[in-house]
């Protein structure tokens, strides 16, 4: 029973990591209607920026905010410089560029900061207000931050004019443009915000798994799995999906399949969901008029 409880809580803690990255994946999907394979590496790169600022002696929260600003501008620049010119190109061209960005960010981070692991500080206190060896203060904080981010994103897309305009621009660019929404600006904004969410995720993940250029490799796969399970159109679904992946992975690894097949498990879940419920558990079924 102890083991079960420990594995479940541990799964929730890892799940929070997957959920925060899944949120970033959904964010960009809302804006551009594509999966961004470079999302993980962008987040890793942002985290390195924050690490560098802290290493130079900046206090944590100052570095945190500057890193978010940098990520926002960086994300917009990527859209403006790289994706705007190929906006009407087939989807395969976009995928090739996503992969290229992945490799570029990975190699660049390795070149600048090398491949040894770095310690990244946690913003949360060293001790929980209550005694427990079941969950650490950082894990507890990450779950909280993920839920707060989810809340903000929900409010943003549901109630703010900019959020609504962004959804409109992604869902139906032509009509959106006709009612006076600048689709171009919305796309840039979507990239910027997705980069910000990714940066927050990166800074929450790094204290747990250590910062290095390949940090996001496995996590992105689980993040994708979480996003697909929950539904790519639903931020709430992505978070639930992320938590679900973390817990299921731990329990399946402990009691059923053994730790060797944990990653395989995530991939099987992706395939199964796409086969039987392509929109995900909470996703909107997109109906296309032909």
């Amino acid at each position, binding site marked *: 029973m*102890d*083991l079960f409880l*420990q*594995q479940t809580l*541990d*799964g929730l*803690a*890892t799940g929070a*990591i997957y959920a925060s990255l899944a949120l970033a994946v959904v964010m960009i999907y809302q804006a551009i209607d594509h999966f961004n394979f470079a999302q993980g590496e962008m987040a890793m790169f942002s985290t390195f920026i924050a690490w560098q600022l802290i290493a130079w002696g900046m206090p944590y929260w100052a570095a945190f905010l500057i890193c978010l600003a940098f990520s926002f501008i960086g994300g917009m620049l990527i859209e403006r410089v790289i994706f705007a010119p190929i906006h009407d190109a087939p989807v395969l061209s976009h995928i090739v560029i996503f992969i290229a960005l992945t490799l570029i960010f990975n*190699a660049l981070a*390795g*070149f600048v900061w*090398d*491949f*040894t*692991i*770095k*310690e990244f500080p946690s913003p949360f206190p060293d001790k929980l207000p209550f005694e427990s*060896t079941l969950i*650490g203060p950082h894990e507890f904080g990450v779950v909280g931050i993920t839920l707060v981010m989810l809340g903000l994103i929900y409010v943003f897309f549901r109630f703010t004019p900019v959020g609504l305009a962004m959804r409109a621009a992604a869902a139906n660019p032509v009509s959106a443009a006709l009612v006076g929404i600048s689709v171009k600006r919305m796309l840039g904004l979507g990239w910027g915000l997705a980069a910000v969410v990714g940066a927050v995720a990166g800074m929450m*993940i790094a204290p*747990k*798994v*250590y910062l*290095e*250029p*390949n940090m996001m*490799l*496995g*996590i992105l*796969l*689980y993040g994708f799995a979480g996003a697909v399970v929950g539904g790519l159109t639903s931020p709430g679904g992505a978070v639930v999906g992320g938590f679900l992946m973390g817990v299921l*992975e*731990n329990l399946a*690894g*402990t009691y059923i399949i053994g*730790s*060797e097949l*944990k*990653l395989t498990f995530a991939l099987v879940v992706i395939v199964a969901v796409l086969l039987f419920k392509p929109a995900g558990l909470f996703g909107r079924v997109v109906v296309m008029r032909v």
Partner: protein
Amino acid sequence: MKLRLMSTVAVAAMALGAGPALAANAPGVTDTEIKIGNTNPYSGPASSYGTIGKSISACWDSINAGGGVNGRKIKWISYDDGYSPPKTKEQIRKLIERDEVAFTFQTLGTPTNSAVHKYMNKKKVPHLFVATGATKWGQPSKFPWTIGWQPNYQTVGAIFGNYILQNHPNAKVAIINQNDDYGKDYVIGMKQEMGDKFDKLVVKQETYEVTDPTIDSQIVGLANSGADVFVNISIPKFAAQAIKKMAAIGWKPVHLLNDVAASIKSTYTPAGLENSKGIISVDFYKDPNDPEWKDDAETKAWHAFMDKYYPDGDKANKFNAYGWAVCHTMKAVLEQAGDNLSRENIMKEAANLKQVHVPMLLPGMAVDTSPTDFYPLEQMQMMRFDGSRNVRFGPLISAETE
């Protein structure tokens, strides 16, 4: 026509009679130079190892400045393979077929060397002292042209097994290992040493994949098994995660950590020095930063070498001492071969090192090979981390690999 044929035969006979009956020197060997080929990961995910190639290059510079080996200067040609096996294959072909090196030395990495293992043996080019701890480099009957250098992973596994039997004969042992050849080699070594005790003492074994984001779940499972000895076979990133998680859940077994991750800089510091206290590991060469060697002549010579020939190199990085030691092993082989520098003879001498001491090995250690023993280093000493340094304890332990 007839006459010309005669004269050719005569010249050939004279040539044969002139020198001693030796095989011709290897390609890349002249009266003034020996060309040595190498691949190293100067870029890519394993580029932290690249400093080994650079320190060896600096080592040859220092040897050349002293007149070279038997009057011949060493020409070191080292290419970047980015730790990518197909690239290694391409670079090795270039070294042997275009640059015409005499042999290769210290090519780095298990997957990368595996990619050229057959090629080197088919071409009959010495594939010397490869920089990997896998066990498969010591098969003289099957691969007579390939030889390793550092104590192999099975040796370390056997030393851990021996330590458990001697000190904790009734232990409950938990193991985590990376799920590949490297991780499995250690477990094989442990099994060989412990025999049927292995199944009796080991209560739980877990594995992880390099792509796993964390190994927290595995650590929780192992802690829950009630084990009081933990054998940790992981690379620095996961070793640090394990140490941190163990502290968080309050699991305090006797912790045996593989040499691959027993680094203060790359594992213990990120994991927390306090959390890492008491971890036991093994080593075979001196850590030049350890105060124990402050007045040691070999260490001082190494510091002087670094200052003069590799000023950009990081003196805090142990790999640079490794490069110095392995370079002197190569030098010993070439000295032994003298002027008989055929590929056959270079290989023969590499497998004929009798208790050769090279600088920076731990006191009492020596390189030893024979035509049937392609494992040059088979001794190690245990050490325990005291919160600031790794303190060696006990005698040198030998573990011969079968």
